[in-house]
């Protein structure tokens, strides 16, 4: 049983390696990271920030949990269009939730405002097949700023 488990784990680790170019022919410039990778990372950071603040301030959980879930759903969609597995939930947390609920809320509001700007720029620069998703993410982040008022 142990051996089978180890084999499965190895198999899982090996699959992404081949996808990363181990067997690729070296016949083109490295395309570099996908331009949406920073947005994916930001979605995970925002999700973690809301989750942490909801844990620290239970009175805010009703407000913050759906927002955290939205960021997680954005991350899942972004990972899908980039073509990478969704990074594990242990993303580096955003700012440590501030001392009291009001300042935690204000800090989250600021990070949503920044996130809205990032998504707006990404939408403007995106090819057609990605633009609608990025538009919804920008709009969602704008509504988060409003909800956190």
């Amino acid at each position, binding site marked *: 049983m142990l051996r089978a488990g180890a084999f499965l784990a190895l198999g899982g680790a090996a699959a992404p390696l081949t996808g990363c170019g181990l067997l690729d022919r070296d016949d083109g410039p490295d395309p570099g990271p996908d331009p949406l990778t920073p947005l994916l990372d930001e979605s995970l950071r925002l999700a973690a920030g809301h989750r942490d603040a909801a844990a620290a301030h239970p009175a805010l959980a009703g*407000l913050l949990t759906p*927002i955290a879930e939205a960021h997680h759903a954005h991350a899942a969609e972004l990972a899908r269009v980039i073509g990478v597995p969704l990074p594990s939930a242990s993303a580096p947390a955003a700012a440590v939730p501030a001392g009291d609920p009001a300042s935690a809320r204000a800090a989250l509001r600021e990070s949503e405002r920044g996130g809205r700007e990032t998504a707006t720029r990404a939408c403007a620069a995106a090819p057609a097949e990605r*633009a*609608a998703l990025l538009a919804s993410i*920008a*709009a*969602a982040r*704008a*509504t988060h700023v409003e909800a956190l008022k």
Partner: protein
Amino acid sequence: MTAPTPAGPADALGAALSAEYAAIWAYGPIGVRLTGAARTAAREAEAAHRRRRDDLIVRLSTGGGSVPADRAGYALPFPVTDRAGALRLAVEVEERTAAFWRAVVPVTTGADRDGALAALVEYALRATRWRRAAGITPLTVPFPGRPT
């Protein structure tokens, strides 16, 4: 208003215009069921839809394309008999109109795409404010404007 699946910018903008007509019409029955701040907000929302309607008519007619006509009336998704129903319809109107502008985003670039995104964001924000006024939670949806 059905789910938007336009092929090009003119189709997408024509569909958005039809959605704006319906939104303006819907704010009639909404406004009469509201009072105070909510009524003022409804008036402002209606004015925003009228501005976009007017812009779209100018844009589509100068582009030489066909301009969809307004209708005498539109079917409401549910009867509106009180304040709660009016607020619920206002949420619905903003979400649905937002979906038509979202559909404009991928078929445009540059300033046209910026404008479509601005409309999507504005209507999504209004939907959130209407939910707050109605006491509907959560205040937000994960993907504003995305067809469900």
